[in-house]
């Protein structure tokens, strides 16, 4: 062992931790810093395209704005349940932690379902990543919309799977697989979920690899770190919602 030659005052203690925080938290903050730049670049590209195209379409009518507002409320409520779960983990109340994390997953899943329904509606109206029916001279509208919201929805989905692993551990794997199979068999091909459901299979495979190769009991630090990721996902939506939806309301 490398520490045999070094004398310590206390067994196992090296230099003080960075910022007085444990390394898992610092690691998650570093990841979130880099991910915020990813979303920043995507939002910049969207804004650049929008400024340089005065004919940018504004197709989101009352129903879309109402749907997006409910989605925002779901994410904000999920952040509240997440932070209450973190508080419960500090108290050592494992049952409450599991329940708050499940509540967070419920709100996150509601967000994904509502968002998928919105996507399905827009695709049915003729919108693709390369064209849109409202402004044929502005093909970037579809590309920027689907990239921004798709990247965000992917982060939310990964977050829900992450929280499921922390809350339920190996018991979550059969749930994920059953959901994937049921979705694959029952969802019609006209819905985006018919293809998007495969993310659950991928998540199940990755989660299984992590849980079987590195089995551990997830403690309050793991809950707190998963909370940081979840709040980041909410934070990004605080910018996507006004810039993409509220700036593109249908002018009657």
């Amino acid at each position, binding site marked *: 062992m490398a520490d045999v030659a070094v004398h310590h005052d206390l067994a196992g203690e090296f230099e003080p931790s960075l910022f007085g925080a444990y390394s898992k938290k610092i690691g998650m903050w570093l990841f979130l810093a880099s991910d915020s730049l990813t979303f920043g670049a995507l939002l910049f590209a969207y804004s650049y*395209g929008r*400024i340089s195209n005065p004919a940018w379409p504004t197709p989101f009518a009352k129903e879309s704005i109402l749907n997006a507002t409910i989605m925002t409320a779901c994410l*904000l409520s999920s*952040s509240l349940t997440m932070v209450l779960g973190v508080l419960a983990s500090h108290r050592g109340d494992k049952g409450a932690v599991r329940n708050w994390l499940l509540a967070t997953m419920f709100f996150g899943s509601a967000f994904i379902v509502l968002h998928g329904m919105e996507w399905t509606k827009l695709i049915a109206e003729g919108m693709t990543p390369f064209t849109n029916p409202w402004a044929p001279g502005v093909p970037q509208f579809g590309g920027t919309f689907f990239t921004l919201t798709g990247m965000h929805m992917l982060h939310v989905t990964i977050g829900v799977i992450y929280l499921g692993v922390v809350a339920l551990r190996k018991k979550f794997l059969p749930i994920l697989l059953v959901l994937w199979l049921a979705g694959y068999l029952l969802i019609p091909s006209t819905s985006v979920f018919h293809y998007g459901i495969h993310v659950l299979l991928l998540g199940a495979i990755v989660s299984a690899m992590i849980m079987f190769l590195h089995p551990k009991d997830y403690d309050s630090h793991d809950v707190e770190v998963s909370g940081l990721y979840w709040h980041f996902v909410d934070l990004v939506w605080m910018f996507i919602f*006004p810039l993409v939806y509220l700036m593109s*309301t249908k002018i009657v």
Partner: protein
Amino acid sequence: MHNIAHTDEGKGQYFWVWGALLFLTAVEVVLAYEQVLTPLHMLEVLMVLSVVKAALIIAYFMHLKFEVPIMRFLLMASIVICLCLMCIFFADAARILSLGVR
């Protein structure tokens, strides 16, 4: 395991923050729905409100307000500076408008 940052107050503040976030969202939606502002002013107001909401989430939900000052400064300064650097290229977007490209 203990960290040297001081602890937060309890769960009441989180409900207040949640309420404030919902209220600010409602303000944004009403402004968008009523369309009382020009698009430029609408953008300015939405960005200010979004930054306020982001600050509330980062400070309270992500607990950064209760971390040590150097951590708060390093994280926020680095991310904000990098994001603001991108804004230099908005001038190019505005330039394209005057080129007459259809």
